[in-house]
């Protein structure tokens, strides 16, 4: 994480770009964007010291809506790009934005190994239990009995449990937020950035178009009844019995983050540019 600067503090709006989001009105991702910008302002960071990396999907549009450096990458491959960036530029604060399809299905394997590597990244997954951008197919976190025209009678498949997987794979900070509480999400994200190592923040972010019943999540969520633990065994028991609606920091580990020294550059940028000369 970057040290806060002594220059004039920036407000959340200073982290929002001039591009206007095109998510459906009512989408939880608006709130997550607001939470990210509030968290960055609270941390006293500056846009030029932050990079937001994403894959593909509704949630992955976020980099364009911020004034930070951004990379809207390949489906499911946000984490490898972010890992490379952080390894090469450890001075940057690197956030990674994803959704449940991009992050847990197409990018599922990268998720495991990003947790294992424990590079100092903050991974924010907007989970709406559906592929929204491609018109409502079931995702890894979709309930087995959710029936739709695309999956009549439901998939019958057990859901993926991302927080349990993250813990088992070595994530150093695990939290769950709800988009109906943007300031609560901002606090979780700010703490995730401060915490060294791989921080995973899952945010329940309703898809009001394909899963309108998720508006009811507001009544289902609750603060976690127990304080965060640094004991993986205790955290595992809690997460295994969790119904998916407990909010807050659920695990804070103390594993030292990966901090490899970046290799010395082998080429000057000017030399690389020569390859593109006509």
């Amino acid at each position: 994480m970057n040290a806060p600067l002594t220059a004039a503090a920036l407000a959340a709006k200073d982290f929002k770009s001039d591009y206007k989001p095109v998510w459906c009105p009512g989408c939880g991702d608006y709130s997550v964007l607001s939470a990210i910008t509030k968290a960055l302002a609270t941390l006293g960071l500056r846009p030029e010291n932050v990079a937001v990396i994403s894959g593909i999907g509704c949630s992955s549009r976020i980099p364009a809506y911020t004034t930070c450096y951004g990379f809207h990458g390949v489906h499911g491959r946000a984490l490898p790009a972010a890992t490379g960036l952080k390894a090469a530029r450890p001075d940057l604060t690197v956030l990674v934005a994803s959704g449940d399809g991009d992050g847990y299905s197409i990018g599922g394997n990268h998720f495991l190994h990003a947790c294992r590597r424990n590079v100092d990244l903050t991974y924010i997954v907007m989970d709406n239990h559906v592929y929204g951008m491609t018109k409502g197919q079931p995702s890894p976190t979709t309930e087995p009995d959710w029936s739709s025209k695309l999956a009549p009678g439901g998939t019958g498949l057990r859901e993926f449990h991302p927080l349990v997987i993250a813990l088992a794979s070595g994530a150093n900070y695990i939290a769950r937020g709800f988009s109906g509480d943007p300031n609560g999400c901002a606090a979780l994200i700010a703490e995730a950035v401060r915490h060294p190592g791989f921080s995973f923040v899952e945010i329940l972010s309703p898809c009001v178009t394909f899963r309108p019943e998720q508006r009811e999540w507001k009544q289902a969520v609750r603060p976690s009844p127990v304080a965060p633990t640094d004991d993986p065994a205790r955290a595992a028991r809690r997460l295994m019995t969790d119904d998916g609606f407990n909010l807050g920091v659920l695990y804070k580990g103390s594993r030292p983050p990966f901090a490899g020294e970046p290799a010395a550059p082998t080429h000057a940028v000017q030399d690389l540019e020569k390859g593109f000369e006509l």
Partner: protein
Amino acid sequence: MSARSPAAAQAYDYAEFMARAYAIELEATERYAQFAEQMEAHNNPEVAALFRKLSGFEALHAKRILGEMGWVDMPALPPPLAWEGGGEGPETAPFEALHYLMQPYHALELALRCELQALEYFEGIAKRDVPAQVKAAALDMAAEERLHAALIRDWMQRVPPPAEGWDEDPDPPRMNE
């Protein structure tokens, strides 16, 4: 999940109270402006214009607080993540309240709900053991919110309530039903 908690026991001095009142108005200003942008992006110009108006009203209230306090710009606000009980300001409309086919009546209903929440918030502060100046200012704010609520109710009388099936779209984005 952090709930709005106007009754949280917390003492204020006058400047801090006014800073919070300013933050409430500013957050509401920004949220209505965001809603206007969303409605513009989804080709709902009538509701977009209404949200712009609401944003403008909240901005005027914020500006008036600055004037009253002699502040030229944003004062040293309380930490934005530290509302009593967490959550957002009492006058801030929630993101999830929107629908791309919503009508002016829906927007006014939402605004009314926010004004009433703000009224409750300020009345709650006035009931606390706070300095007399804070109590008086909180009662002033509550009176203002009450007036705004009445104005919105009046506005709603002049707007047709939505007909049944207002959210039916002959060309819906959702094709999986």
